[in-house]
């Protein structure tokens, strides 16, 4: 295929002192894909996300987004080009009520450019977006201080903040971790809806069962290296993957 992929990661590497956190990882991502990235703890998944989104500077390799090199751009510039991410450790703006947390991404120059200047009432847009991710409108939860929200709502808030930026590519770092089965089941349809809307998504996950149901491709990292790539089934049949997962559970 000659079409340029939405995202191309090419030999991407990062060393923290002596630790090779990410080691020559390459993959392509086409528009509309849902790519899963899995691997044992400390295998370099979050670092890969940090490299793509500019929060960590690469020691080698390149990242291309829509044919443009973004490898060493500042995080805010990468967001403006259309990549939004969530953090594994969700840290909301604790001082603010949940819906006021949404004002900050809605204030983003990216949103301003997309909406064409004036946004109107950001509070109303914030409440709409929160409802989309499961904040019940008549329950007062959207008005509560972020510091008292339970984990499930914090994760939803984190997702809503990324959606608010109207990105083309969303990277969700362990969105499901710390959530109950029921909570995961209620978030999966939101992600399916995002895919239908034409978004491209990368999901880092430990909850393999839920991930495999929605991902159309998976890559596996171990000690910073990509050790397998393919459909969920192909990947789990690889000996190297079995060994990596068995090794990490001992």
């Amino acid at each position, binding site marked *: 295929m000659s079409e340029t992929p939405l995202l191309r990661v090419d030999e991407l590497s990062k060393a923290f002192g002596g630790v090779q956190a990410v080691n020559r990882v390459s993959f392509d991502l086409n528009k509309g894909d849902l790519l899963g990235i899995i691997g044992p703890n400390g295998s370099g998944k979050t670092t890969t996300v940090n490299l793509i*989104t500019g*929060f960590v500077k690469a020691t080698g390799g390149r990242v291309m987004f829509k044919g443009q090199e973004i490898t060493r751009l*500042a*995080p*805010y510039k990468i*967001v*403006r080009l259309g990549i*939004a*991410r969530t*953090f594994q450790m969700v*840290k*909301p*703006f*604790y*001082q*603010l009520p949940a819906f*006021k947390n949404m*004002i*900050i*991404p*809605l*204030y*983003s*120059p*990216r*949103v301003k450019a997309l909406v064409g200047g004036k946004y109107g009432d*950001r509070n109303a847009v914030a409440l709409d977006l929160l409802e989309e991710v499961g904040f019940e409108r008549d329950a007062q939860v959207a008005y509560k201080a972020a510091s008292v929200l339970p984990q499930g709502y914090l994760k939803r808030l984190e997702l809503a*903040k990324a959606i608010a*930026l109207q990105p083309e590519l969303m990277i969700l770092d362990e969105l499901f971790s710390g959530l109950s089965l029921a909570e995961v089941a209620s978030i999966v349809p939101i992600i399916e809806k995002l895919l239908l809307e034409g978004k491209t998504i990368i999901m880092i996950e430990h909850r393999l069962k839920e991930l495999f149901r929605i991902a159309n491709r998976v890559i596996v990292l171990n000690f910073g290296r990509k050790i397998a790539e393919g459909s969920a089934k192909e990947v789990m049949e690889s000996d190297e993957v079995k060994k990596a997962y068995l090794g990490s559970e001992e």
Partner: protein
Amino acid sequence: MKKRRERIDRGIKVRAEDIFAVCSWREMLYLSAPRLLPIVGFIVLPLILGVYWQRVLLSVAIFALLAISWDILAQSGMVSLGQALFFGMGAYCSGILNHYFGISPFVTIPIAAVVGGAICTVLLLPVLRLRGVYFAMVTLIIPLMLERVIEATKIFGGTEGISGLTSLPSTWLELYILLAAVLAALFGFRRLMTSDYGLVLKGIQDNDRSVMNAGINIYWFKIQALFIASVVGSFAGAMMTHVYRFVGMPVFALDYSILPIAAAMVGGPGSFAGATLGAFILVPLSEALRALGGLRIVFYGVFLVIFVVGLPEGIFHFVARKYHQFERWVEVEK
């Protein structure tokens, strides 16, 4: 039997938040008193005070502005130990313009506020990426360094400073300009910080990574907050120069860095009203203690410690809570 304290909003607060507010004098007074009180106080005080306490009030206003300036930075995630930099820069700018170019204070003060603020912002640009205590250390050191530079190079009067500057026409005018500035800063910046723009600044204090992740250039926003705070501090310095008709090395002294922070802490960090209230308590107190000579610092220090330990939320938040809520003891099961 265990007991715990329960806090309940006063009935009048609940009513006043609703439509009833416009139907009754009591509710309207309840709502407007916190705003009217400082305004009326600021108009009346200069008229009833004697010459000595008018001077003290001038100092109060100066330190209130510096404390507000400190709080703008604090609320935007920058901890400064160097309000003296802003103060001194404004003071020298207006002094130089007045002495060497003979420009009237009515022109030098606004120019010094903006130009002094711009110079301070540029000076601190390289360290804006430093966080927390590292940023604080640099802001602490720069004014002390400038003091030494002036001493060593003997520029702008060196250790002697520049004296014989033009003063404003009357003490009352000085007072009213300063008090109006405090009021404008108090209400203006409070409005700014509750706007969407202000939310972004507060977001930087809370979690700068997450603000970056919203596609917002946090350094650009920090530069803006720094400039606003610098202008406020430089304005205070420029005013003081024309009040004393003198500018010299002491404008970079530690006092102008430390007292504003103490005022903000005692008054209530995170609110401009708290910062102002703190200045209104600490500056007169430090004047009253002057008679004690050397022991003054000890009393002052003890007072500060008692406050920070006993009322960490600050006086303003304490008073505001008492105004809006009442407390009662309720029994806890078990």
